[in-house]
């Protein structure tokens, strides 16, 4: 594989990784904002306000956990792909 192709593959890998990271953060933020809306309404009803806040907290923790997992998985895949590209580059480099 020629160096130019490898450089492009590495560039595509980096771009995909950065796009997934940015999208996961943005979608996570939007998800959080949307999830809070019904809880904000329900929390106005005094008798159920406390349990609503507790459920909301649990919901948001789960949501954040899901997006964190996506970002972590993305990072890991990126590191492994980068490592694989380093190896290919090492093999392809003329001695």
């Amino acid at each position, binding site marked *: 594989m020629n160096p130019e*192709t490898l*450089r*492009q*593959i*590495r*560039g*595509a890998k*980096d*771009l995909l990784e*950065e796009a997934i990271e940015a*999208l996961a953060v*943005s*979608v996570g*933020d*939007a*998800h959080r*904002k*949307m999830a809070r809306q019904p809880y904000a309404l329900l929390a106005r009803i005094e008798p159920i306000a406390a349990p609503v806040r507790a459920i909301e907290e649990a919901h948001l923790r789960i949501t954040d956990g899901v997006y964190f997992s996506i970002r972590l998985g993305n990072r890991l895949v990126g590191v492994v792909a980068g490592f694989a590209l380093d190896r290919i580059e090492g093999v392809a480099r003329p001695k």
Partner: protein
Amino acid sequence: MSDAANKPAAAPGLGATLASIVNGCFGDYLSQRDNGLAIDMAFYRHNRPLSLTPEALRAAFPAPTARLCVLLHGLCCHEGAWDYPDNPARSYGSALQADLGFTPLFLRYNTGLPIPYNGKALDTLLEQLLAAYPLPVEELVLLGHSMGGLVLRGACHFGAERGAAWVGKVSRVFYIGTPHEGAALEQVGHLVNSILHAVPNPITHLLGDVANQRSQGIKDLRHGTVLDGAAGVAAVPWLAGAQHYMIAGTVTDDPEHLAAKLFGDGLVQPPQAGENVCLFPGIDHMQLAHDDAVYEQIKTWCAST
């Protein structure tokens, strides 16, 4: 000389096409991040960048001529945009070489970068080209398709401003489907983006944020920006001493049809009728870069005194 003999044997493939599309959409980001997909501006031949040294140019052009034509593609494209789909060995460049003895040079550049940035880079590159070219250049003809026309206009402006030698060699500039007054599609895109941000909803904000990631090159098409800062295209005078020609198309055979009035060539509205303006009804935006009727008009203009 036959067309096949002049054209690169290795035409840009799928990888180059995808890279050009990504550059058009996010090229400024790629350049900023020093991403391997970012395209560096260069003249391309045989799908490879041409080194601007006398030796490399002599090897690339064994029979150089003193008349050069430089071809610039549009947004998200590469030099393959000039190839005729039914005959990839033929392009306006190869045809001008066969018919009028021009040596064609095809530029490839990162279309996502700001248009003024690409204009300045082209100004520098043309200076290097003329310094390294094996013969003294007598005539320089510039052809720009779509965004390429704006980049040309910028390069001429920056070159003229600093008194670059290459500017004096420019005899004709062809703007093919160039949005001098701005591209309607980007104007609509900007409007939709503003609406998405104005609606108080996290999903529309998210969609607006995603749409706003489009490159500065695309955003510059909204007003046809050629200069840095707030100055628009209107502030850029046409290069004195050169003839300027505008070529436009329409999506319908009847240029008075409502669809032609609304959508122009599909992406760009035709300019107002004038002396050096030629309208090709029924030829859409991309086809303008490789059409026999358009070429005949270019050849006629090039052959005129």
